[in-house]
């Protein structure tokens, strides 16, 4: 066995030297190669949030130390006692203070309604239906917990979490599945799952190198028998898959002199899904 191992080690010496001419070719190609834009925190949002936070803090301190804690804004208080009660609100769990809804994390959730059927169409875009109050509370906390109201590729049995004003959270238990009527089908090839603890899938659209394909939140390939294969356990690294996306969500951006269409996939299939 060792003899054969020695022979195998010698194979490396057979490999020709790296062709130096390739350097220039690679660097030239690198300059023209677009980089995927990864979704990140919008830079313009940061100063806006800082401003909002500053205003909110000012309002808080003015309210607390000048007008008194918990005093309704339309009735200036002559008391600064925190124990003063507010007027009761119509909705349990929600109070109003200076017109800002205050969610106290006690609203009951509705019952679960999950109806995701991958077999009929690509009905895998779900909207989370929140109570109006919870929605307001979450909107005011968007910068903290990024509550998503539309979630792609929720699998039956998945849990969703909604964050409340404090650091606690609860599972969402009312989900409405929407029918998506603007889907288009593409054939995705060359799905590469480079080895890493953190999955990162690279997808190419055959013969369209100028199309960047994103596949946010997709963790599974949906099989024809309605089973799901985790992306990181696909046997073949290169395989033809079928991706679906909404035509209305194709984004175009430029990288250098190159114009790129960016498609965000909604789902990946190991078989041609029916798209109506």
């Amino acid at each position: 066995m060792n003899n054969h191992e020695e022979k195998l080690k010698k194979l490396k010496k057979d490999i020709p030297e790296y062709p130096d001419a390739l350097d220039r070719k690679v660097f030239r190609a690198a300059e023209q190669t677009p980089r995927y834009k990864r979704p990140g925190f919008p830079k313009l949002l940061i100063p806006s949030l800082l401003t909002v936070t500053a205003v909110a803090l000012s309002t808080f301190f003015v309210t607390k130390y000048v007008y008194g804690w918990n005093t309704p804004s339309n009735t200036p208080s002559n008391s600064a006692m925190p124990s003063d009660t507010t007027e009761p609100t119509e909705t349990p769990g929600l109070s109003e203070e200076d017109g800002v809804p205050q969610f106290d994390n006690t609203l009951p959730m509705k019952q679960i309604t999950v109806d995701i059927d991958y077999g009929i169409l690509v009905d895998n875009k779900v909207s989370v239906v929140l109570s109006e109050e919870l929605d307001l509370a979450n909107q005011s906390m968007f910068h903290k917990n990024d509550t998503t109201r539309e979630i792609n590729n929720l699998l039956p049995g998945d849990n969703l979490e909604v964050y409340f004003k404090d650091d606690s959270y609860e599972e969402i238990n009312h989900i409405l599945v929407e029918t998506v009527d603007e889907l288009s089908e593409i054939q995705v090839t060359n799905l590469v799952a480079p080895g890493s603890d953190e999955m990162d899938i690279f997808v190419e659209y055959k013969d369209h190198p100028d199309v960047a394909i994103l596949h946010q939140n997709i963790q599974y390939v949906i099989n024809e028998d309605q089973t799901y294969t985790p992306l990181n356990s696909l046997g073949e690294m290169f395989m033809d898959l079928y991706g679906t996306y909404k035509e209305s969500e194709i984004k175009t951006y430029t990288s250098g002199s190159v114009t790129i269409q960016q498609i965000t996939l909604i789902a990946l299939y190991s078989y041609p899904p029916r798209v109506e």
Partner: protein
Amino acid sequence: MTNEQFAIVYKTYKVMVFQIAYSYLQNVEDAEDATLESFMRLLRINRKFASGDDQRRYLTRIVVNVSKDMLRKKRPVPISDPVIAVNDAGQNENNYIWDEVNKLPNKYKDVIILRYINEHSFNEIASVLKISASAARKRHERALKMLKEELSHE
């Protein structure tokens, strides 16, 4: 990844990538194409890596996949192509071993190339191929056994 960062990554790993590509494709031009494509993929993916090792494994996985994909697209060439014949006896033997390595099923060939060309440890092979280290060892053993059987026929 900026162009400057890319230049550093490229200089660090270009030989490794080329050697892996050549091991699969056995042709300088194809290996050049695979090398180019692998680095462009790394650029397009535009991912941040926790460490240099992470990046190395990632790039290894890319070039393995790119090379295999190119192999699949290539028209099959007869293995004992007379054009390959070389005068030097040692070189001729190496060609024969290359042929046998390339005849191995992919999962065994991967291990052999990563182990002997890329000089990966079993843990690294496991990480690249997304298998356990013990599975990597087992594949290595089986691959050597298969090669031994084939080579002893000559």
